[in-house]
């Protein structure tokens, strides 16, 4: 049972445009959501997060939106830059669960 899903394995956008990465979850106990970015041959690194008490969190070019009723969150990158090309993982955690559950990842390619 995959509790966190990223249904788009890949996404390609033009430099300067908006990138939108989507993530769906099934466990209503999740109360914190994070996005990680991963370059080849490196470990995932934290990008941005959102608590379930919010519906939006913004950090520079990155904005995460949370729709709790739809159990859906999205990461917006605007404007997209070639250096944003990486694999993006969505992750969710529940209070006292002791772990984060990761999605399958979406490979973003930003073309110059």
């Amino acid at each position, binding site marked *: 049972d995959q509790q966190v899903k990223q249904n788009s394995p890949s996404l390609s956008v033009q430099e300067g445009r908006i990138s939108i990465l989507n993530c769906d979850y099934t466990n209503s106990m999740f*109360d914190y959501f994070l996005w990680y970015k991963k370059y080849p041959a490196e*470990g995932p690194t934290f990008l941005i997060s959102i608590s379930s008490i919010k519906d939006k969190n913004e950090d520079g070019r990155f904005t995460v939106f949370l729709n709790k009723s739809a159990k859906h969150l999205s990461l917006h990158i605007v404007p997209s830059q070639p250096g944003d090309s990486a694999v993006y993982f969505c992750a969710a955690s529940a209070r006292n669960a002791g772990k984060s559950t*990761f999605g399958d990842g979406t490979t973003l390619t930003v073309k110059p």
Partner: protein
Amino acid sequence: DTAVSQTPKYLVTQMGNDKSIKCEQNLGHDTMYWYKQDSKKFLKIMFSYNNKELIINETVPNRFSPKSPDKAHLNLHINSLELGDSAVYFCASSLLGSGNTIYFGEGSWLTVV
């Protein structure tokens, strides 16, 4: 300074061998993890330790035995390696609790031939 470091980064070994991957974190975190990324790129948790105690074991075969000598170290020992064990293994650490950022090591690429 590397926050979460794991060694070796690359490991090629034959089926049936026993191997270990070491991990250390210098972030003062109380929780450490092992994640496995398989050929389909799924990132799945294997183990989680809090203050040297096992808190999560995600139905990993007994051939995998984590050991945490102290809060800053979590090593992974694998017995009788099988072809299907080939994957990238990521060590990670965090403070215990929902919403705390997990910091990952660079990964250990294990290839079983």
